[in-house]
């Protein structure tokens, strides 16, 4: 150490740091800091504070803010310190300013001038300090003040300055992309900078730019690949090495960029295959950093156009991660698996037990990551297990942020894959119960609609069964103490519509329950509105069938209470209910038809039924209505006048509505009109009948819902329907593949009966805590068992038992497939264009770019003589078979030069990885290995299963 209490630090400062360090509680720390604030306020204001002393004060101020107290009284001194001539003091000043102020602070304007001056300094360290400050302090408005200087500094002779200038430009781009849009080409230029530090820093802005606009940077693919190759071959200075890995952070950034550029682009991806293969082979699985690069490689491979050989390497690395004891690696493995199953869902099968271990791990981080994976691999065959697990977990956590996320995922999965309506409703109940206030209101509306519309098939029996089961479950749930408001609204609505439909419950029973709800949630107006409307519906249904409604005392008191409510909405509902009770059955039936919530409400947007009224008024001298868009084009005065008139007419409209049976034409939205007939209803029942025929379908929704709910019904039209019949699901919106979609539709009906069975199985298995592995296996089977689309078509009774079988039975087949794909992977190595030729600057037809931006870089990076000599030999003999022959004749030679010649290294390491399998195989198959491999490949393309070849291959190896 020895640096403690170095020169220049006063005893005061040392004491402060010591006392902070020794503070044993936050309160004590706060006391120290408050005392310090007092001291600083006094000291800092003293005249002629020595500059060094002031620097120390600034650092003490940094401490004050770092420990959570306000140090704004000293900001101005930090600003002043940036004017200092001494580099150290200046930089400390800049540091303090960047820590204290955000870029929109008023004081920044005082610094811009200093920054401009410092950017012109002869001392490059001062320029660097200013550029660092630029990155943090310059906002959109001040960019133009420094932009020209920053651009000029891109060509500075010191690499440190160039690097920081690039980053300042990057910052401007982050802050205001338009301000530097004309300077984007500078980033491309700096990518070819002689200095690897500048090049490495330039990758950051380029990554951002490429993320925004991939297609404009496709031409750089070859350059990025070439840089990555050189980095991987240790051409960068040794100082970039980290734990024996050559510049791993630059490699990772490059891999991220390549993943973007290669995504869905076969041609671009083609350039990357070789180098990605190299990195996989060179990876060091023993070190963390090696695994970090490996993980990034997996991400890249799963993002670009798939290559079987690379995928296989990625799967292998992933399985190593998953099998590791380290939680960190498991975590990375789960993430990698989630990426790989997008390409091939079967990959997950092999790792099912590892996944389940992670799911059951007490470590929350790992668990969440695993849920993310499960979410990605959900389909109709495993949705029940997965959603059940998610809900269990959702119950156990308090973190609202994550609870919301997992609840919305549950809903999404349930809507997309639900095997039956009952299951869907039960699942929604659970979600609402435990996270009701966190889920989107839309979810509640969807649920109501589902119950109202049922299957959407002509099976009325099933629909009513669904409804009565919903009613049953809701009546049960109502007993629970704390239910979220949204959920209560759903319950009230369903009870109102269907509570008495099947005759199981009496009207007074349901009404009693509803009154309880209203009483228990006396502060929630929305819930109360739902309850009173539900009561009204039940009364209406009773009256319509000729039964007499005897209001319970608690119901009567509820009506009385609401009639006097502050909320006009509640008042109106209460009065409507009272009025309805006085009507005869015929009237009630037309006002409140039973089960009519699904009837389409026809909205006459043109308000044609008012035409006669309009004509009448015009005849009497009223001015014609001017549509709003035409009005806006008028002059100010005219505009004002028409606005005034419009206002006046809307006022008159309102008064008229209460006096006349017919409303006057409202010039705005039809929603205003719709509630009006209901108000008519109350005072003049006789008159309404003829007119109500026109409005009858409107009434149920107009009365059973406030204006908010009104929107509900309407809003649903735009909502995509994923759940239910396959025709409803839209192919584009879901993340699942199309095959899963159809399978979902196919198993839809079957699933309904099977659902409870599999669930029982699951719970049974959970009871047997003793047999842990068996239980896990079962869970695995239910999660992964039916991972292939075809297995979903199985009949239900056999659904359970065979699940475990295919997983074990399929493993050898998978292995076979893996080993069978090895030979062609080797074949691809020589056929890809040797990118090394680029390094030599020799224009070859294989490498596309005519201008090599790396010639410059080449000259300056590392020793190039030795590799280039060997590269030359490979370049001289572009016929790869020759090279191969050379290799098979003299393997040791290849070993020695392997590290230098990447081409040879390729071949060598491949063989090493496969334990010489192919080597032996080649000898058995004939002298010309290349030929036999080609035959293999063509046979496979034709469709011959190669499994027969491979066992012998293994036998050769083992025997």
């Amino acid at each position, binding site marked *: 150490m020895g640096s403690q209490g170095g020169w220049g630090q006063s005893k005061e400062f040392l004491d402060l740091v010591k006392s*902070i360090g020794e503070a044993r509680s936050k309160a004590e720390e706060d006391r120290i800091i408050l005392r310090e604030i007092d001291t600083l306020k006094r000291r800092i204001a003293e005249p002629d504070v020595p500059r060094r002393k002031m620097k120390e004060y600034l650092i003490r101020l940094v401490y004050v803010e770092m420990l959570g107290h306000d140090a704004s009284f000293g900001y101005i001194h930090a600003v002043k310190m940036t004017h200092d001539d001494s580099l150290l003091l200046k930089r400390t000043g800049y540091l303090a300013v960047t820590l204290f102020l955000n870029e929109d602070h008023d004081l920044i304007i005082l610094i811009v001038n200093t920054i401009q001056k410092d950017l012109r300094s002869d001392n490059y360290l001062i320029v660097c300090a200013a550029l660092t400050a630029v990155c943090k302090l310059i906002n959109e408005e001040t960019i133009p003040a420094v932009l020209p200087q920053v651009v000029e500094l891109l060509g500075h002779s010191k690499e440190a300055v160039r690097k920081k200038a690039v980053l300042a430009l990057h910052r401007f781009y982050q802050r205001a992309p338009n301000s530097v849009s004309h300077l984007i080409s500078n980033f491309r230029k700096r990518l070819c900078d002689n200095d690897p530090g500048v090049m490495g820093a330039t990758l950051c802005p380029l990554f951002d730019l490429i993320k925004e606009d991939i297609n404009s940077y496709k031409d750089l693919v070859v350059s990025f690949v070439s840089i990555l190759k050189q980095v991987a071959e240790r051409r960068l200075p040794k100082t*970039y090495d*980290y734990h024996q890995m050559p510049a791993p952070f630059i490699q990772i950034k490059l891999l991220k960029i390549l993943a973007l550029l290669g995504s869905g682009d076969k041609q671009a991806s083609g350039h990357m295959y070789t180098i990605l293969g190299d990195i996989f082979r060179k990876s060091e699985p023993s070190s963390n950093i090696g695994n970090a690069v490996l993980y990034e490689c997996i991400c890249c491979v799963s993002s670009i156009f798939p290559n079987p050989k690379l995928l296989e390497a990625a799967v292998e690395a992933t399985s190593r991660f998953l099998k590791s004891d380290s939680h960190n690696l498991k975590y990375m493995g789960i993430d990698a698996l989630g990426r790989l199953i997008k390409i091939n869902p079967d990959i997950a099968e092999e790792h099912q037990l590892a996944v389940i271990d992670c799911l059951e791990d007490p470590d929350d981080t790992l668990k969440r990551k695993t849920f993310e994976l499960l979410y990605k691999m959900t389909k109709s065959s495993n949705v029940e297990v997965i959603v059940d697990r998610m809900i269990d977990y959702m119950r156990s956590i308090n973190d609202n942020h*994550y609870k919301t996320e997992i609840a919305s995922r549950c809903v999404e999965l349930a809507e997309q894959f639900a095997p039956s309506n009952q299951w869907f409703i039960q699942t929604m109940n659970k979600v609402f119960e435990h996270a009701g206030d966190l889920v989107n209101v839309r979810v509640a509306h969807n649920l109501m609609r589902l119950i109202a519309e049922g299957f959407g098939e002509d099976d009325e029996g099933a629909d009513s069964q669904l409804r009565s089961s919903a009613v049953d479950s809701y009546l049960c749930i109502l007993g629970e103490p704390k239910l979220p408001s949204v959920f209560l609204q759903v319950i009230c609505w369903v009870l109102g519509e269907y509570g008495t439909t099947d005759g199981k419950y009496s009207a007074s029973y349901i009404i009693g329950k509803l009154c309880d709800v209203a009483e228990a949630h006396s502060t929630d107006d929305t819930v109360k509105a739902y309850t009173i409307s539900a009561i009204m519906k039940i009364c209406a249904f009773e009256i319509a069938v000729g039964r007499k409604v005897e209001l319970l005392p608690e119901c009567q008191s509820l009506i009385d209470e609401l009639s006097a409510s502050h909320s006009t909405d509640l008042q109106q509902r209460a009065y409507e209910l009272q009025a309805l009770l006085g009507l005869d059955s015929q009237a009630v039936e037309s006002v409140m038809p039973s089960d009519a919530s699904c009837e389409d409400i026809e909205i006459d947007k043109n308000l044609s039924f008012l035409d006669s009224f309009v004509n009448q008024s015009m005849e009497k001298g009223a001015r014609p209505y001017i549509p709003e868009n035409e009005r806006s084009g008028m002059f100010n005065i005219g505009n004002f006048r028409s606005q005034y008139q419009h206002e006046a007419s809307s006022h008159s409209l309102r008064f008229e509505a209460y006096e006349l049976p017919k409303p006057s034409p409202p010039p705005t939205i039809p929603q205003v009109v719709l509630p009006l007939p209901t108000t008519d209803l109350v005072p003049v029942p006789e008159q309404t009948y003829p007119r109500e025929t026109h409005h009858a379908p409107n009434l149920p929704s107009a009365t059973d819902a406030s204006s908010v709910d009104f929107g509900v019904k309407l809003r649903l039209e735009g909502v995509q329907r994923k759940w239910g019949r396959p025709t409803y699901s839209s192919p584009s919106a879901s993340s699942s593949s199309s095959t899963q979609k159809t399978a979902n539709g196919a198993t839809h009906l079957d699933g309904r009966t099977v659902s409870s069975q599999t669930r029982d199985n699951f719970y049974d298995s959970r009871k047997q805590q003793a047999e842990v592995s068996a239980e896990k296996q079962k869970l695995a089977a239910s999660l992964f068992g039916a991972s292939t689309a075809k297995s979903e078509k199985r009949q239900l009774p056999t659904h359970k038992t065979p699940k475990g079988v295919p997983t074990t039975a399929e493993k050898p087949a998978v292995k076979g497939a893996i080993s069978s794909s090895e030979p062609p992977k080797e074949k691809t190595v020589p056929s890809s264009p040797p990118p090394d030729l680029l390094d030599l600057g020799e224009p070859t037809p294989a490498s596309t770019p005519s201008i090599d931006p790396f010639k410059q870089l080449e000259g300056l990076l590392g020793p190039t003589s030795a590799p280039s000599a060997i590269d030359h030999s490979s370049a001289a003999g572009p016929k790869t078979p020759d090279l191969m022959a050379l290799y098979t004749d003299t393997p040791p030679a290849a070993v020695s030069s392997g590290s230098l010649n990447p081409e040879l290294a390729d071949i060598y390491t491949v063989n090493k990885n496969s334990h010489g399998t192919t080597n032996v195989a080649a000898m058995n198959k004939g002298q010309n290995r290349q030929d036999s491999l080609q035959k293999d490949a063509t046979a496979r393309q034709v469709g011959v299963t190669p499994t027969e070849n491979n066992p012998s291959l293994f036998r050769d190896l083992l025997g």
Partner: protein
Amino acid sequence: MAIRFILLVNKQGQTRLAQYYEYLTLEERRALEGEIVRKCLARTEQQCSFVEHRNYKIVYRRYASLFFLVGVDNDENELAILEFIHLVVETMDRHFRNVCELDIMFHLETAHFMLEEMVMNGCIVETSKTNILTPIQLMDKAS
């Protein structure tokens, strides 16, 4: 932007260095630090070095009494960030020789300068220890 903040916190939960790459008010910082420090300090050695918090992911590593916490976006390579922390520690170690909590406390500005060289705009921009330390050493010499 990948890195949102870098925090150094000791095992009592006291902040020893804080660098944010996006603006948060003093109250927000205080709340955030309190929450994540509580979360991370409660974890065992065997558990993942990554913790999700709101929309951040925290990657952390413990060195003796000091925790290094880095808040990153969700699509960041966590393992790489974990190693980046170690690179920061190695760099500090090279400068201070056997760095300890008190070194950072007594030379807070120097520790900040190092981070300024390594991370800008929320990106890792320099990983060569020589390049990181040269300007700092030159500055020390000059003053």
